[in-house]
């Protein structure tokens, strides 16, 4: 101990540097909303990172305990506002689990189509923002251009462009308009080559690789210990996806679908895609892999949507209607996690025999991804901070709730 102090004093005489505390956020351009990160920096090197959250806190859980179960659905839109459909789905499925209700075949396929479309939209935002945070503006515009087309599809189907409130508990208010599936397929057809463009612009860009490969390496053990989920967990090499490994009420939705779960097992990805080999510098669990996993998941989602449209058109029966607002929840508990684009989104409900939940709980993946920032960002350069935050793909709406 004593020796250490003497040693450090000698160093200070040699080159005297002061540590500086810097507020990154809540108005910083690359903290994805209102995250505030306090950096302790020595020159360009970040020695300590403390995330502060709560700037977007809206008492989401408390509101859920004051409203009828169905009435709360529009509030779930505001959690992960980039993937509102998936939030809707999570809430709807949790209620259905508590009620022991199963939706019709047609409804289930529609849910797959819609939620996977929104997964693409969300991953596009993630990819674009990653480019933006690395200083490249163009991919952001390109991904938003594609997202816009998905948003247009959603607008046709539910009238809203951000907060959709479409996948209600029990079913949907109205099915897709005429020709919607054709337009959806047309979008997928034109979107497929765009993915290659994005790969050219970002994934295989030498500077992008230099900036993201080997930066913010998240080992699988740490990812599991910190509760990381979704693409972040899979990019660390953990083969885990609730669409396959989740509870039956959720996995039933994907019965009969074939797709791959994207995770670099032993440093290798499932090789049914035509993209070039991994860069030399990339380490499993780094920012580049987190980005790449999302890009590949977009392709898988496209497979799922195509299958979903086929199955939807082949399915018999009608689309289910939502529960009525006064539908009473039984006394009991239900907790369900679903695979949202950003990670596992968990909703917990405690019913007491009335329409209003006695207790509601929301578990958001981004919250855990922010928690691991402190570990990942220790000792990185300031310029790596935006890279790591962007590769986590956090959204403050669901962190602060």
């Amino acid at each position: 101990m004593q020796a250490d102090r003497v040693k450090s004093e000698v160093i200070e005489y040699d080159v005297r540097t002061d540590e500086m505390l810097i507020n990154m956020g809540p108005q910083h351009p690359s903290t994805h909303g209102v995250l505030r990160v306090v950096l302790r920096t020595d020159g360009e090197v970040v020695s300590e990172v403390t995330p502060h959250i709560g700037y977007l806190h809206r008492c989401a859980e408390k509101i859920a305990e004051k409203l009828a179960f169905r009435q709360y659905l529009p509030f779930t839109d505001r959690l992960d506002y980039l993937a509102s459909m998936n939030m809707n789905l999570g809430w709807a499925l949790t209620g259905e689990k508590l009620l022991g209700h199963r939706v019709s075949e047609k409804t289930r396929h529609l849910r797959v189509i819609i939620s996977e479309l929104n997964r693409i939209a969300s991953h596009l935002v993630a990819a674009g923002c990653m480019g933006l945070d690395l200083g490249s503006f163009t991919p952001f515009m390109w991904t938003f251009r594609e997202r816009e087309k998905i948003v247009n599809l959603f607008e046709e189907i539910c009238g809203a462009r951000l907060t959709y409130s479409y996948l209600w508990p029990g079913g949907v208010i109205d099915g897709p308009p005429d020709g919607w599936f054709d337009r959806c397929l047309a979008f997928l057809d034109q979107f497929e080559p765009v993915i290659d463009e994005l790969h050219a612009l970002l994934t295989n860009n030498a500077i992008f690789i230099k900036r993201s490969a080997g930066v913010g390496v998240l080992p699988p053990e740490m990812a599991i210990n910190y509760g990381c989920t979704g693409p972040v967990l899979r990019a660390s090499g953990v083969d885990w996806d609730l669409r396959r490994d989740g509870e039956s009420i959720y996995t039933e939705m994907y019965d009969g679908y074939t797709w791959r779960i994207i995770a670099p097992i032993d440093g290798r990805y499932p090789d049914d895609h035509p993209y070039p080999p991994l860069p030399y510098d990339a380490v499993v669990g780094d920012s580049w892999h987190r980005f790449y996993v999302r890009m590949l998941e977009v392709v898988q989602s496209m497979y799922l949507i195509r299958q979903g449209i086929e199955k939807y058109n082949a399915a018999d029966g009608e689309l289910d209607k939502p529960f009525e607002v006064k539908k009473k929840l039984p006394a009991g508990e239900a907790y369900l996690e679903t695979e949202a684009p950003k990670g596992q989104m968990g909703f917990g409900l405690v019913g007491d025999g009335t329409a209003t939940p006695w207790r509601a709980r929301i578990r958001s993946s981004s919250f855990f991804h922010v928690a691991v920032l402190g570990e990942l960002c220790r000792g990185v350069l300031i310029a790596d901070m935006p890279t790591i935050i962007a590769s986590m793909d956090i959204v403050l709406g669901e962190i602060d709730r």
Partner: protein
Amino acid sequence: MLGWQFNCRPIATKLTTDNYKLSPVAELLTYISFPEWLAYTIAALVQCALLLAIALCSAAVGIWLERKVSARIQDRLGPTRVGGKFGWLQPPADGIKLLCKEDLIPAAADQILFRLAPYISFCAVFCAFLALPFADGWVAVELNAGVFFLVAVMGLEIFGVILGGYSSGSKWSLYGAIREAAQVVSYEIPLGLCVVLVVLLTGTMNLVAIGESQAGWFFNWHIFHDPFTFVAFFVYLTCAVAGTNRAPFDLPEAESELVAGFLTEYSGFRWVFFFMGEYAAMFLVSALGALLFLGGWNGPIPIASLIGLTYENHDILGWLGNSLGVVNLIAKGFLGMTFMIWLRWTLPRLRVDQVISTCLKYCVPIVSAMLAGVMIWCHCLPGGVKSYSFPRSAWERTDPTLRVDGIPDHAVTQSVTMLRSHAEHGNEDYREESR
């Protein structure tokens, strides 16, 4: 101090009435029988205004270009309304909007330095324009060490940035300023070496002479002189982009890391000054690159001399042909700017350590090797690939006149232009003198 006073060119500065190409404006005015003193005075004012106009216009056009090119790259339209078509009046509109903004100075800022910084930055760039020739004679101050002056004065721009970042009273600004200092100082080394390489090749620091030495077809351009200059051009390009803080080297104002770097606390017209300085500097380094490597004001095809716009035919024709060079150089300058804009909207940003290591590990060694290569090349192939001849002393070889005219026995310490003008206009006195 324009044109005729501070001219240090040893012999070509002997201004004879029949071979006066230093101030085209004065030349034109004396041609239509203005008294000489009036012609010079008017020329001085005109040139001053022209220079400022060119500096500002290049910045304004650059801003417009940036908006349009970036829009096209991003599948947008960019400005379309202001000024009728293409949004060509967008930069003035932006400027007016910015001038109308509140003059904000943070309470924590060092008042004097904060106010001073933008002017330093802009003035440095504007001063560098003084030594930039747009064509033979189209230069405000023709300095014997023009390229040296230009690079040195342009380097002063960072003082404004450092002062601005330091005086803003913001940590992000400070980071931007320190990064700027580290980056620009590092990149001036390879940039300077690229310049030295051309100076070695031409044997002069006079930018007019450097431009002159590339007259003729495009294979006379220095970039095509030998493989080493070809490589050196790309090193220059890298350093020019880095030296003007453009992406992928825009660390000092990296908006996703440092909010806006040294510009964080600036707004309104002070910000405009920095902005204009940046775009004028972009034009400046592009024009300098064109002068050093891409033939300066000489087009790829010598149209002017092919269609007879030369001084041999008529003074006015010669003046017109010379003025075509201005168009050429400005076009090349904007081509360079477009390239920088293209880069910016395509590539992500490098990290600070990668920027510095790119400079120290790649740019400096490569350009040093190219410098040595050019020396060896000049020693072994004095006339270039086209006309191999026996090795002679280095000074002879660096004189392109020797290549063109094959006059081997000169005392070759004089500048190229001098030789050229004498070779062309047959000033017999000179040969007597030099012997």
